[in-house]
């Protein structure tokens, strides 16, 4: 294994282990070794998160493991992303996403996990946070020329906001694909309300987003 391969493997393992200290030091080592920052992200950090996503789907790990893996991922990204942005050649651009937890809902763990998996898939993310007024979703999609709008709800009261506003959203954003998710939402409701996609969990959501954008990273 070459030095570069060894560094990339160390980065992957650091993400899998949720070790942000090693993820940061290995990312610095990648820069020092002259590895292209974008390659370091895609070949070093991202595979670790993809593996954690696989384990989560298989019931082999749970959200706390994903949270610390994300912390390690972001520790590496903090070092590599500014450099990768400076030399954008080869940078993946899967699409522009506006994401948030809907009006009245402060539960955002699921939304944050979907955001994480979409970032791993190469999407440009505009995270509006939680308790987001429905009108703001439309404004932000227009401002950022979004390809995809992702809305989450964890309560029976806030899911009604999605149902109520879907016609307005579809009318204002005819070219934007709309995905919804969260504990009370189902594929059936997504179909009934006219959403383009639904994800049972964060990895499924990323897979659906890629399908809607006609790209593949998670398969």
């Amino acid at each position: 294994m070459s030095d570069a391969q060894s560094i990339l493997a160390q980065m992957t393992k650091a993400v899998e282990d949720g070790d942000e200290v090693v993820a940061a030091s290995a990312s610095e080592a990648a820069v020092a070794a002259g590895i292209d920052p974008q390659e370091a992200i895609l070949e070093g950090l991202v595979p670790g998160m993809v593996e954690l996503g696989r384990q989560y789907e298989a019931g082999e790990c749970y959200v706390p493991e994903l949270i610390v893996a994300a912390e390690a991922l972001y520790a590496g990204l903090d070092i590599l992303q500014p450099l990768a942005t400076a030399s954008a050649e080869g940078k993946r651009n899967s699409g522009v996403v506006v994401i948030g937890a809907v009006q009245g809902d402060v539960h955002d763990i699921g939304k944050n996990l979907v955001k994480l998996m979409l970032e791993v898939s190469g999407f440009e993310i505009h995270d509006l946070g939680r308790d987001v007024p429905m009108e703001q979703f439309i404004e932000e999609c227009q401002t950022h020329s979004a390809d995809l709008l992702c809305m989450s709800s964890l309560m029976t009261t806030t899911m009604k906001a999605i149902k109520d506003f879907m016609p307005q959203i579809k009318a204002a954003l005819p070219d934007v694909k709309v995905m919804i998710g969260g504990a009370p939402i189902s594929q059936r409701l997504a179909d009934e309300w006219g959403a383009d996609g639904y994800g049972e969990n964060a990895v499924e959501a990323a897979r659906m987003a890629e399908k809607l954008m006609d790209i593949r990273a998670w398969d």
Partner: protein
Amino acid sequence: MAVRDQMTSLERWEALVRGDDLDRVPCLQFILGHTAVVNGLPIAKAYDDAEMSLACQRSAMEMYGYDGLVLHGWANAGGAEFGGEIEYPYRKYTGAPMMNKNPVQNEDDAWALRVPDDILSVGTIPIAHEFSRLQYEAGMNVTIQVGSPLTWAGSVCGEERLMSWMMKKPDLVHHVLRVITDFILAKAGIWVREFGPERIMAFDLCIETNVLYSPRQFETFAFPYLKEIHSKLTEMDVAIICSHICGEQNKNIPFWSQLDYGKRGFISVGREVSITAAREAFPDHVVMGNVDPITMQEGTAEQVLELCKACVLEGKDHPGGYALMTGCEVPPQAPPVNVYQMVKACREYGQY
């Protein structure tokens, strides 16, 4: 035409608690915001006004004809008691109190966490205490929320911060859980001394699902504290101990079944845990569940009735007792006719 009842709701409830014969399957409800809605009030009144909350719950119970429960509490509790900022659900689409700022923002905050000197004065406790006092004066069971500690810890620290610490700083999480458990036990002691253990129904609302946590994490961070609280409540001779095991917790059920519920506990399960699985895990205790709340809100009356019928038939012969209930709180905006289907199903399919 529904079958006529042979017992009053009070008679049925008291017989269920004692383990006596019943005329039919009881219908118990985990219902707060909806009772305010059907009284023409903001949902928040079920939470921030003890007198109105109790009045709304009693009038809804009378209107629908269900047999209980009447309580004050919500899943995301605990944070306000340690200094967090809470918002009551007055705004459109809000459905329950929310934590807008967790009291613990960093490790120093967490290590500094202490049980307050005057528990009755902090957070939402004055409202809960007033609610209990009104229940006592009305001759009802006095309800008190007793956790769960891990669920409260999420409200105190913020769920993601808590999860990160579970992986990296477990001692810190155990410190937070220790303080919260001490708080809950001190609160329970106050209630027992003031209202008497024979009138108290202690309940925990627990959202530590296997969507979030592994069974191992549940065993490490939830189970020891739940076990301690249940054991001490039993030592205090608290009359009824009730758990709402919210959401997908199939892998946690083996731990739940080890908890002390006294002679006759009440266990409510979500739609994700089958009534049959709950019956097997709790052979001597009352199982409550597990009508899908989403169908309660989005489904037709016919769909709700069919769902309730299936639950009643699955649960009614449970030796420990069975009561029809939703798998989580009745959605505040559920059509009233759907709530009525629950009582109708008990009358039509739950006769003994």
